[in-house]
């Protein structure tokens, strides 16, 4: 009841926050589950498919942050290209397609869990201490236009360098795996 009253009393911009927060919670839970499955599953192909779930969740987060262009690019590049590349990599290295028990280094597992937990405590603690109750300002109406102006204005040279980097990576990959 108090929640309904609070929702009725809020400013128009903040009323939107209740459904988006619910959506965020669901997406975040799905992403964390899928990410844990990526690093723990015993089936290589399942890892690639769970990676798709994580990447879609990241794209949904971009939409929640009003970055539609980045979200579409994320789906096109990651789900459309990179996951397919991963599946080709799995196929070409003749990875075991079913369950296999030697995907993990059991000797390293305690250290890995320790490292991840320490990182989580340090990162989480410093984030909560630094950005306690800072809000995200969801006001930008034309973010794609602004992004285009930024890329083809002040960041034109990094953009062109990036094109050359992609070309170099493409040629490098071909040269590396060419048989002769």
């Amino acid at each position, binding site marked *: 009841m108090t929640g309904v009253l609070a929702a009725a009393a809020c400013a128009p911009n903040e009323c939107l926050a209740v459904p988006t927060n619910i959506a965020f919670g669901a997406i975040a839970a799905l992403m964390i589950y899928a990410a844990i499955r990526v*690093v723990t599953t015993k089936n290589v192909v399942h890892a690639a498919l769970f990676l798709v779930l994580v990447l879609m969740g990241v794209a949904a987060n971009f939409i929640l942050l009003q970055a539609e262009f980045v979200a579409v690019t994320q789906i096109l590049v*990651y789900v459309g290209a990179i996951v397919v590349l991963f599946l080709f990599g799995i196929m070409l290295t003749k990875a075991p397609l079913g369950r296999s028990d030697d995907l993990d280094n059991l000797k390293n597992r305690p250290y890995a869990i320790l490292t991840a937990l320490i990182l989580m405590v340090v990162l989480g603690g410093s984030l909560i201490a630094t950005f306690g109750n800072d809000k995200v300002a969801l006001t930008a109406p034309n973010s794609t236009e602004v992004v285009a102006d930024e890329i083809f204005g002040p960041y034109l040279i990094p953009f062109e360098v990036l094109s050359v980097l992609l070309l170099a990576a493409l040629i490098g990959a071909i040269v590396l795996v060419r048989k002769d």
Partner: protein
Amino acid sequence: MLLNQFLLLSAVLFCIGVYGVIVRRNGVLVLMSIELILNAVNINLVAFGTMTDAAIGQVFALFVIAVAAAEVGVGLAIVLLIYRNRQSIDIDELDELKG
């Protein structure tokens, strides 16, 4: 929405990625864990960009996506080359640099 909810989600993703990089033996799975880390960084960039109401965060996220695509291309080529030379992509067996 709070800024911290995005930052904490990306911190969790980052830590899961670090765990995967350390614990996995299959080269392709290590590359997948690196993708998790890069995506965590992207969420951070876009969230900070939205917080400061500047498009620069999204621009950098786009750059990171492009660099990640190049990285996966070259990385998978290297993994393929390792497989061709050794018939295995077990990262733990690549210890020639050990003294």
